[in-house]
């Protein structure tokens, strides 16, 4: 069954067509890789799915519901959550508070309930704290719970961002270049982590520059070039695809785009 279905997504910036009629269907429970040379439109597509950009045309159905007109923050409650290539944590907040923020859309305490710290608000707070600590432990960063996020090491900041995203209970987790800036060991750990997340029932979409990691982790890969989809399928199949090889290794028109 398809969890997410994109149809005919187009987007131009000024006169430049970044995406032209892109279709993509993501199955429930898979890890989907999204690759393409620089300027292929993968980040644009990613931002359209997350709601940061508005598509010019097309549709994005998620669990049978049209999402293109849904605000970013409302998509989060529906289960579509993203991370950022250049890590966007709440710098002055502690690691624990960053993860607590992830529970924002799964909790309800409002201004009045919080102002008087009602029994329900206090109970919710305790629950969020417990769950957040569990997530921090799961990502091996519990010792830094009271450290300001901006003081964490780069690798731990990446982990914290994933913990925060998981706290929102995503159904589709969108990772934007999660391996950027990680060393090889950290990259391997990340690969295991993404599989574990998938095994826990979350569908994952990964945009990644690191071909090795992407091919190793993905169940299926979608390849974009010049704003169009040129291949889709299991990693081995895609790697053998002639057009993909042409785009990536150069030759003909593909060279100029690389």
């Amino acid at each position: 069954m398809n969890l997410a279905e994109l149809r005919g997504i187009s987007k131009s910036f000024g006169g430049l067509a970044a995406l032209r009629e892109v279709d993509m269907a993501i199955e429930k429970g898979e890890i989907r890789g999204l690759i393409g040379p620089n300027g292929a439109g993968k980040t644009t597509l990613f931002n359209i799915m997350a709601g940061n950009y508005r598509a010019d045309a097309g549709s994005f159905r998620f669990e049978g519901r049209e999402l293109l007109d849904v605000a970013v923050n409302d998509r989060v409650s529906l289960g579509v959550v993203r991370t950022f290539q250049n890590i966007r944590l709440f710098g002055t907040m502690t690691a624990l508070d960053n993860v607590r923020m992830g529970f924002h859309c799964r909790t309800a305490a409002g201004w009045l309930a919080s102002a008087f710290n009602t029994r329900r608000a206090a109970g919710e707070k305790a629950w969020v704290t417990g769950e957040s600590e569990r997530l921090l432990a799961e990502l091996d960063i519990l010792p830094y719970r009271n450290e300001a996020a901006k003081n964490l090491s780069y690798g731990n900041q990446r982990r914290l961002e994933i913990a925060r995203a998981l706290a929102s209970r995503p159904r589709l987790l969108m990772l934007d270049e999660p391996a950027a800036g990680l060393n090889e060991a950290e990259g391997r750990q990340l690969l295991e982590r993404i599989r574990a997340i998938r095994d826990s029932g979350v569908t994952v979409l990964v945009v990644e520059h690191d071909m090795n990691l992407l091919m190793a982790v993905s169940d299926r890969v979608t390849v974009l070039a010049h704003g169009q989809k040129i291949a889709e399928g299991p990693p081995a199949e895609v790697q053998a695809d002639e057009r993909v090889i042409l785009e990536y290794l150069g030759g003909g028109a593909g060279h100029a785009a690389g």
Partner: protein
Amino acid sequence: MIPASPGGWARAAGLALAGVLPFLLDNNYVFHLLAMSGIYMVLAMSLNLLIGFTGLFSLGHAAFYGLGAYASALLTQDCGLPFPAAFALSGLLAAAFGAAVGFPALRLRAIFLAIATMGLNEIVRLFLTNLDGLTGGPAGLPGIPEPDLWLVRLGQPRDFYVAAMLLAAGTYLVLANILSGRPGRALIAIRDDETAARSIGVDVTAYKVAAFGVSAFFAGLAGSFFAHYLTYISPDSFGLSESFAIIAMVSLGGLGNLRGSLWGAFLLCSIPEIFRSLQDFRELIYGLTLVLIIRVLPDGIADWRPLAARWRQWRSGPGLGGEGGGP
């Protein structure tokens, strides 16, 4: 609200002691000073919610303060409402006004929001000055009744001191609860990274509007209290210089430091009073404080590290540091 640790009990005991101290002096002037400090504590804390915790730089806090004061005065004088009702209503009116103002203002970024709120402050002051029939114009509104709280009637500066401190304490508790809870964390998230906040499910617009509303609510309460304490108000009390005084208090205590706002308000209320001969320089003192704080202690008086670092740099010899070397 019950202290959770021995440290908490010690602090509570210290606070209680400090609260009793003025009674030993039993001096009306001291009580007056502290009552005014209490009002400014509420104003500083509520402004801190906006500029310190949410990152919305509003320069027109006195507009909400004045609105609360005039609303309360008119509701008791012209509509004959009892003080408690007028007090609550003036808070709610200011909140509605704050939210209404907040909505369009949110489309503006940083410096433009600052300019727009400054403009708003002036507009409110001009309305208060020129709507003679309603507000008494530049002459103001005299004869505002003293607060009648059914059981007690506030009249002496001593009564107002106690009431102002209770109001400040209540405001502190409510704001501290909000800030350590779900809405407060969302505000801080918006301040730290608006895009990330939205991408983790925060309705940024709704929270900003609500922050404006809550901030204005407490400013309105402070205004009502002020009006019924002095029993006379005029537009002069709610101009831009008043807004800047409150900003100076927030900055002195530290942006994003709620307890600091209590100190900032207390210090900037008392210092100009202690040096009575400097009365005419009140605004100058506020301005200087603001400049000095921003330059020397950007995190307020609670955090001396920037100054210590500067001192070390200065001691380590001239010619090395970048900061003090200008032409």
